[in-house]
């Protein structure tokens, strides 16, 4: 009996350590691959210049157009997504009755939307675009990516607001607060969760290629208005990696490195702000 339990315990412990090593190992391998191939091409030019003529066959320039384009799209989509998902989440949690029919349907909808692959959003965005006679543009890209991130934002924020104790609303109502004033308290309470949601959404938005493939277009210049097409980092990686020229392929890894770095910075700053802003959280 004792021996069997010891072996059992040892076996599962080994399994857990192994699983952890695989995950940590994969992350290191990914970082190593993009760093070793991309580092040599990661010059100041890559970050600070737009492609010059012949860039895609190995001549000078950089991918500033894609960096800026990706930032525009992911920031735009996250802001727009927040503006849509926060009211929905507040409605479901504060305005609708607890576990009401409408609230449950809304949550189910988000679960389904969450599972839809991004290429489907891309195709949907493309159809809408064609229907309205829009061309591939920054605006169309932002709208399509917004569709992609709304379920991410809404689910994550809903999760934290639901976790807030119901007695908190009893307390505000007892003080004579309206539902809107109560909503504000819940948002305050949920700040760390909202920041995590923003981070998730931003990471997904900046890294997704399929949604922007048909909708944002691709161009060598930095867009100056919402109606212009824009390059994005995932597509910059895709196009360069498909090149037979090694130098261009390496630039794809440099672009991947930049993308990873941006996500890393966002993660770390989100953690920092989340700590600062949640000092009053109960």
């Amino acid at each position: 009996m004792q021996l069997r339990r010891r072996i059992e315990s040892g076996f599962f412990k080994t399994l857990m350590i192994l699983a952890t090593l695989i995950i940590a190992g994969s992350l290191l391998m990914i970082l190593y691959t993009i760093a070793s191939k991309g580092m040599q091409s990661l010059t100041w030019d890559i970050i600070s210049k737009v492609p010059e003529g012949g860039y895609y066959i190995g001549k000078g320039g950089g991918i500033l157009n894609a960096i800026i384009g990706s930032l525009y799209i992911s920031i735009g989509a996250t802001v727009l997504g927040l503006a849509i998902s926060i009211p929905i989440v507040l409605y479901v949690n504060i305005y609708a009755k607890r576990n009401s029919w409408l609230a449950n349907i809304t949550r189910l909808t988000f679960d389904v939307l969450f599972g839809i692959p991004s290429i489907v959003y891309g195709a949907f965005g493309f159809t809408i675009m064609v229907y309205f006679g829009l061309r591939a543009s920054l605006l169309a890209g932002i709208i399509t990516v917004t569709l992609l991130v709304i379920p991410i934002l809404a689910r994550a924020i809903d999760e934290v607001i639901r976790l807030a104790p119901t007695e908190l609303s009893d307390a505000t109502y007892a003080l004579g607060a309206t539902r809107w004033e109560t909503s504000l308290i819940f948002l305050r309470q949920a700040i760390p969760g909202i920041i995590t949601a923003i981070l998730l959404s931003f990471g997904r938005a900046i890294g997704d290629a399929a949604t922007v493939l048909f909708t944002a277009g691709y161009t060598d210049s930095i867009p100056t208005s919402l109606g212009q097409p824009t390059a994005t980092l995932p597509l910059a990686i895709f196009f360069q990696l498909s090149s037979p020229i090694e130098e261009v392929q390496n630039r794809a890894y440099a672009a991947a490195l930049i993308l990873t770095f941006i996500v890393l910075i966002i993660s770390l700053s989100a953690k920092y702000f989340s700590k600062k802003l949640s000092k009053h959280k109960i």
Partner: protein
Amino acid sequence: MTFESPHIRVKDLNVHIGGNHILKNINIDIPDKKLTSFIGPSGCGKTTLLKTFNRLLDRNKDVQIDGQVLVDGENIYGKDIEVTSMRQKMGLLSQRPFPLPMSIYDNIAYGPRLHGTIKKKELDILVEHYLTATGLWDEVKDRLNGSAARLSIGQQQRLCLARGLAVEPEIILGDEPTSALDPISTQKIEELFLQLKDKYTLVLVTHILRQARRLSDYIAFLYMGEIIEFGPTEDILLRPKEKLTQEYVKGYIS
């Protein structure tokens, strides 16, 4: 037992939650500026009854409330009632303290701000007044801008009481307000309740008989959603008429 001009009068109140009959034909008068306790075993409906007084049950679905709750003679389940201002008349102290996610100062100032006091000077006075009234001022005066979440749980409960008092209620509802507290904090809350009796009508839900005895003027004993007996503290605890009350008070049922 009835009173001439009760602060709260409950008439033929029935509450169903999800098909269960939680409160059955409740009729009770809560006297003005006295402390009335609801006692009874877990699940007897005492908290539900308390929550019908400021309409906190409304938010749940499948809740059906029939009958009347008259506060100062006005039915709070009436058509024209404005729930927000009605609730403001009643402070609520829950089982565990729930400070708002903000500073100590802002917790107290929250209610007055909602209701139109915005001048810093007036708020300063209010904050000091209510923190003093709940014995917190000396403990927290140097960290008013610190987070309320950092206070001990006993301090948090007194903060919640101060926060409730700051909207100038007439009635204070306590839902087992000391059940999460240590003995010393409990004693402080109890002392506050005894002081508050002069100015406010207090309704307390408790499962601690000794606490009910120390604090209450009147006690209602609830069992399975019904009020079994209601009367002055001594009568209920020492000379109960009903057999169920006798058994509960002696500890045979709980």
